[in-house]
């Protein structure tokens, strides 16, 4: 065989392989799709369906992404930061030209269940159809009915600003072939109806895993590992594990307290902050008692991760801790107390607070630098707030004071490095 013939055969074989792979990718992208009737007539929604859809849109916090700050409700425009670039949420109002005015219920179902747009384009999973694929057709139709009932807003969608190759449909198709499979929620007969309802809400519309799950290098959440905690994509916030007592697990709590946290944003022992404050404000505070109870039941029954064996105490950096102690006395003790004891109902204790001792210190750094309020909800209408210290304390100060707090009053958190404190 001459070299030339070998080359031709190799190229041919490679072409066939590529064609097969491309075929497989296409096939994997289309699996599980129901036929779509592009000519389906107008959608006749019942008032009950619209009301149901309004509620479900709150449960899924659709407006959280699909409403820009200060913008028209559901008209899109908010940018979602990802490691691959920014994705801008689309206009969900029934405007013909810029929204979903020309969509029918089949199109909407295909977007929710299969992650494809009306025109057939593959959608980016920043729209968490990897979770929404679990929701029922009935709920999809109700959501569609609600969105169709909104006043149409003419607001063109902003183009995503993704880097190559992530901006191509081909790359997205490969991603989907690897990481997305349309799913259907299957109730587990061994579990209670309440648990199943909770599983449906947490795993479907609630898309809790989008923040509380772990992601691989290509941004795919790991469904098998579940709610094990993870960094928010593109943001320096850590969504703590929901299956671990030493993070944000609630297995040992009274069920009523879990419901209270989701409804009001604060209980005697914990308050939500950062991105979770937004979730409670915009979503969970509006859910009914039965659904919150179901979510609590499911979250409390999660198989529990074991706490890591206590590491050998690190060498104490006395100079850093002394600096931290001085800053604490000057800036923090006024509210949090000389011994980190806090003040019930107003300022959280820092001594023995599991949020203070989290292995991942991102949230602490955020809270000191930027401050924050728990959400103002009906059950907690006047939350106390933490002031921002970013203009008072530099990165080294923040590392020092947090290291001091994590090493004091029985706390066990590791020292905070300058590198961790400089993350924005």
């Amino acid at each position, binding site marked *: 065989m001459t070299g030339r013939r070998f080359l031709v055969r190799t190229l041919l074989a490679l072409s066939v392989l590529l064609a097969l792979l491309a075929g497989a990718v296409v096939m994997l992208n289309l699996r599980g799709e129901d036929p779509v009737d592009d000519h389906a007539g107008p959608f006749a929604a019942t008032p009950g369906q619209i009301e149901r859809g309004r509620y479900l849109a709150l449960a899924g916090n659709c407006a959280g992404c699909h409403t*820009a*700050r*200060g*913008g028209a409700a559901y008209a899109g425009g908010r940018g979602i930061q990802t490691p691959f670039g920014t994705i801008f949420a689309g206009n969900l109002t029934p405007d013909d030209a810029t929204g979903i005015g020309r969509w029918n219920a089949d199109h909407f179902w295909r977007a929710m269940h299969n992650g494809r747009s009306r025109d057939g384009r593959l959608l980016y999973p920043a729209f968490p159809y990897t979770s929404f694929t679990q929701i029922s057709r009935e709920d999809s139709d109700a959501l569609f009915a609600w969105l169709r009932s909104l006043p149409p807003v003419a607001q063109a969608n902003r183009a995503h600003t993704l880097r190559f190759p992530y901006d191509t449909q081909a790359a997205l198709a490969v991603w989907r072939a690897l990481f997305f499979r349309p799913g259907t929620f299957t109730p587990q007969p061994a579990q209670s109806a309440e648990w199943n309802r909770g599983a449906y809400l947490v795993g479907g519309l609630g898309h809790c895993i989008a923040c509380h799950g772990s992601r691989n290098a290509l941004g795919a959440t790991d469904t098998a590992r579940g709610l094990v905690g993870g960094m928010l994509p593109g943001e320096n916030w850590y969504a703590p594990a929901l299956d671990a007592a030493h993070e944000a697990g609630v297995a040992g709590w009274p069920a009523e307290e879990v419901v209270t946290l989701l409804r009001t944003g604060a209980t005697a022992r914990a308050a939500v902050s950062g991105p979770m*404050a*937004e979730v*409670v*404000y*915009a979503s969970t505070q509006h859910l009914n008692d039965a659904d919150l109870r179901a979510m609590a039941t499911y979250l409390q029954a999660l198989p529990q991760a074991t706490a890591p064996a206590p590491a050998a105490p690190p060498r104490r950096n006395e100079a850093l801790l002394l600096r931290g102690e001085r800053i604490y006395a000057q*800036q923090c003790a006024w*509210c949090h107390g000389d011994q980190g004891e806090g003040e019930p109902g*107003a*300022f959280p204790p820092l001594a023995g607070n599991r949020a203070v001792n989290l292995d991942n210190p991102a949230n602490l750094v955020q809270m000191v630098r*930027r*401050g*924050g*309020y*728990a*959400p*103002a909800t009906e059950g907690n*209408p*006047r*939350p*106390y*707030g*933490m*002031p*921002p*210290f*970013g*203009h*008072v304390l530099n990165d080294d100060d923040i590392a020092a004071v947090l290291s001091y707090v994590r090493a004091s009053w029985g706390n066990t958190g590791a020292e905070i490095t300058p590198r961790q404190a400089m993350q924005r």
Partner: protein
Amino acid sequence: MAACITCHGREGQATNSGYFPRLAGKPAGYLYEQLRSFRDGRRQQADMSHLLANLSDTYLREMAEYFAALDLPYPPPAPSDLPAAQLARGKAMVFEGDAARGIPACASCHGQALTGVQPGIPGLLGLPRLYIASQLGSWVTGDRRAPAPDCMAEVGRKLNNEDIRAVAGWLAAQPVPADAKPADALPAGVSVACSAMGAHP
């Protein structure tokens, strides 16, 4: 209000140096609208937007009323290093405006005493020069907005850098009168349509 103190001082008093504006004694309607604007993206300040993101109108209204009701002494103004000509220009803009360029006098809306007007027009005295200048600049660039009709945006976009330097310099150099309170009304009424003087939702 514990979250406000690291910037605005223990009782919203701030200082007249640096950047952060005093809150104490400003009209409640004005403060409320500013809080809403930070939350809803009409004003740009990352810390404020972050802090207020998940707070209700009711709570913001209460915060505004708390600070509006505070009656605290003002510190004396910082000495000005602006040349006399610039200060004179600032004073002229404040009390006469520039009719040729369609710029009304500051005093025509903010009151002859420049201490603001109820319910929605803020006083201009006792604020840091840097703060006034940056606010006037952000009206020029459109970074600061108010709900329509946005009267200050109409005025603000006509200002140039010289105006801003002169006006901010002169305002920041003025002592605040002992009984500085927002006026109850403008004697001649509001001359332009302005959401600040309309009903608040």
